[in-house]
């Protein structure tokens, strides 16, 4: 065991969702540096302003590692995402495309990656995608509010 689940926001199948997020407490003895993004540097904090289409972003994920992407849409509503429990609909999501054609910004296993802007401010939390050219992420502000946590 590496961590204990401490907080999560349940998903609903009957209405709209805003975030897919959870928090865990890392177990004693497990080395972790949550403030450093490997290959990028030290997290600068949380950005107060919303992302805009055309912005460049980065993430470090379990499957694809460090990747660069471009915000292709914001305020995406009525996004249906397939889960083991069925289809789940989200509003107000961020869409990110790959910065390099043919190299997806994210793949399965990258969910939970923190997405940062050019100044290493946290901007979104990755959770879904099509494995080709569209990644979806929750804006960071409702994630932190929903989990009642801070960075």
């Amino acid at each position: 065991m590496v961590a204990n689940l401490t907080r999560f926001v349940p998903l609903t199948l009957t209405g709209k969702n805003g975030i897919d997020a959870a928090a865990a407490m890392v177990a004693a003895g497990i080395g972790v540096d949550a403030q450093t993004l490997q290959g990028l540097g030290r997290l600068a904090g949380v950005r107060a302003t919303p992302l805009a289409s055309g912005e460049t972003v980065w993430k470090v994920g379990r499957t694809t590692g460090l990747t660069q992407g471009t915000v292709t849409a914001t305020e995406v509503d009525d996004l249906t995402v397939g889960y083991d429990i069925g289809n789940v609909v989200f509003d107000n999501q961020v869409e990110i495309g790959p910065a390099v054609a043919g190299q997806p910004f994210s793949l399965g296993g990258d969910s939970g990656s923190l997405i940062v802007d050019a100044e290493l401010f946290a901007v979104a939390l990755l959770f879904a995608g099509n494995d080709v050219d569209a990644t979806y992420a929750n804006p960071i502000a409702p994630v932190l509010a929903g989990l009642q946590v801070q960075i």
Partner: protein
Amino acid sequence: MDDEVLGLDEARAAKPYAKELFGRFGVVNGVGLTRLGNRYAVKVNFETAPRADADLPREISGVPVVVQVVGRVHKQAGSL
């Protein structure tokens, strides 16, 4: 990112209508905002490609529309 971008309120207002309108051409999976130069546009994502001869609207109430076929979207979880 500092340049003024026009038409945010208009693009937001067009989103619900875009879902309804483009839903006549296929399964829409997501309607958001994007930018074309210094203007906001509505982005409509399809799960499957509309018919090749579909006459898709290029704008709604003067707001440009960008279309993409994204296919099915799924949770990007992974097994341990």
